[in-house]
Structures are given as C-alpha cells and as structure tokens.
C-alpha cells in the first residue's frame, strides 16, 4: 500500500489489544482515574509498519501492546503521589508505537528540514521524526539487540 498519505492509518492487527483486554483496561482505568470519564479504550492504530517497503533492521517483531490485565497501578492503588504529580490521561491514552518498522532512504520522502531524533549504534543509524513523535510520544524499539526507548 502506498504510504505517501500522512493520515493513512497504519493498522497492525497482530499488536492490537483484544476486546477482552480493552474491557479489563476500561475497568482498571475507571478506578484509576475517577476524575476522567473514560468512555472506551481502543487504540486507533498501534504503530507504523504495514506498508510493503517497511522492515525492521533487527528482524524484530515488536513488543506486545497488550497491558497485562492484572498489572499493578500504583496510582489506582493509592500510593502517595509525589508533589506536582497530576493524573491527566489513561494509560496508553496516547498510544505508543510498540512495533516500529523502518524504511530505506530511497523510500522516504521527508523534507530535508524535518526535525528528527537520530540514534546510531554500531553503525546502524535510525531516524525518528519529531512531527510524528509529537502525536505518539513513544517508540519502543530494539536497536542492534539493545532494547531502546525513544520518547518526546
């Protein structure tokens, strides 16, 4: 599928949380954030990488996006919060990229003044565009066997 439309949703069914999980998450979120009326939690997409030209340099399939249903939440559990701590959104309300894919330079059409975060490990250079990170905030990656975590 062509990937020149910046608003093309990038569905990745293999990493989509199951409906059952979403219900579990909903229940725990409701408990965690009574101040926010969370209606439903189904991520619109779970990460870039459905196009034919994309790949992962490590051959990595990505991390599971599913939040374990019994995962501890210190905020919901009532741990005393440090000064200045403010609940704002539910967990993964801004949905991270758990299974990133990449493209070669030849298959990339970013403008040259696009701001990026650049990471180079053992000669393996990767670029993560800020414009996209502003929307998704987190990319969980594996870089030459090193588990990395890009945030903005």
């Amino acid at each position, binding site marked *: 599928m062509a*990937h020149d439309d910046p608003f093309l949703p990038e569905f990745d069914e293999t990493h989509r949380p199951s409906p059952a999980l979403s219900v579990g998450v909903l229940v725990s979120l409701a408990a965690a954030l009574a101040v*926010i009326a969370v209606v*439903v939690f189904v991520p619109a997409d779970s990460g870039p990488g459905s196009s034919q030209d994309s790949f992962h340099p490590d051959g990595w399939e990505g991390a599971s996006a599913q939040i374990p249903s019994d995962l501890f939440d210190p905020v919901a559990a009532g741990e005393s919060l440090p000064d200045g701590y403010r609940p*704002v959104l539910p967990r*993964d309300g801004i949905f991270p*990229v*758990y299974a990133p*894919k990449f493209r070669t330079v030849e298959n990339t059409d970013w403008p040259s003044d696009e701001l990026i975060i650049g990471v180079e490990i053992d000669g*393996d250079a990767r670029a993560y565009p800020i414009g996209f990170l*502003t929307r998704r905030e987190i990319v969980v990656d594996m870089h030459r066997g090193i588990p990395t975590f890009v945030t903005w």
Partner: protein
Amino acid sequence: MVHRREVDGRPLVLGNQGDLWGNAMTWFDHETGSVWSQPIGEAILGPLTGTRLDLLASTLTEWGDWLERHPDTVALDAPARMSGFALAQMAIVVEFGSESVAFPVSELRQAGVVNTNVGGIPVAVTVDDDSDDWAVYSRLIDGRTVELERSGDDLVAADGSGRWTAERGVQRSGDGGNLDVLPGFTSFPADYTTFFPDGAFWRSSGNVPVAGS
C-alpha cells in the same frame, strides 16, 4: 530522549502512563506497573521506585543533516509533518480512545477557543486569529473541569480562576499551574473523512458525524 529499556539485564516494555509529574511525561512498565518520570528516566512509584534507565546517545537534528552524516540510515515508517499548506484549509484533529473530532481551522478562528470533550477527556482547542499557532489543552485543572475563554493572546478561566497564554498555556495568573498540552494533528477534511469514517467534525451548532456529513 532515548533510553536503554533494561534493568539488571532484563528488558522492560514501557508504555505511556498519561500523567504528568513536574509538567513532564510519565511512563509505566508492563512488567511491574511502576511509574517512571521521563526527564530523569527513573521510576517514581511502584516496585521499581528509585531504579534508573541508562540514557543513550542521540541527536536532535534536521533530516537532511542526519542523512549527510549517515547515508545508510533507516527512517521510521511514519509520516513527516505537513508543509506548504495553508492551515486555514485544514482541521485540527484530536483523538483519544476510540473517539476523534476534527476542528476546522476556519471555524476555530471564529470561535477563538472551543471547550468540549473527546473520548471523555475535557479539552480546549484554540487557534490564533492571525497566526498559525494552534494548541490543544486539557481543561482539567487541579481536579476541576474549567471552561476557557479567549481574551486577546490569552485564555482565561470562565470562573476567573486563572489566565494563561493561548499559544503555550503558560500561566499568567491564578494558582493552577500551566495548562497541560495534549496531542493533536492537522489534516485536510477530505483525508479525515477518508481515514476516520467514525469521526466527527466540530461545528458550533454541534458535532457532525463524518458518516453523515
């Protein structure tokens, strides 16, 4: 920032906690549920409290410069920003949970600021009348949901509890702190209609579902 998501040789999967501490983002790990602070890369709540992640070397630069130094680089399969388009023809899209709403910039300019809820999150969307500055803010301030009004270059709480700059949400008076900036992105209405068939366009008279627009 780029961190090594590993503790004692054990990789962690981290997600977005969605809370703010010191006005900065927080994460949670899928292994213990601990909550982490981005600027210090340290767990601040939960079983791993006090544990730090190593920071890895990274650069913030322009794509063209990076490419010159790393001709063999790969690029995240993700769209770059839009450029060369008039914002007036576009809409600001706000997306939380399963709900998304597109706010046509032309109508936002008339309204100054829109107070609404998306996915149950109380948000305010504002665009400057004569510049391209736009922003999406949380209307949850100190646990209260406030209505924001536009006053020149500022946003003011309808109940008089505070005043902030419209462009960045920096507090000018009151005691609620800066406004929390939420993510949004720009889209052409036609693209939004195509790719968000379950979405809706904001209108001053009420949201219009894409399916019926």
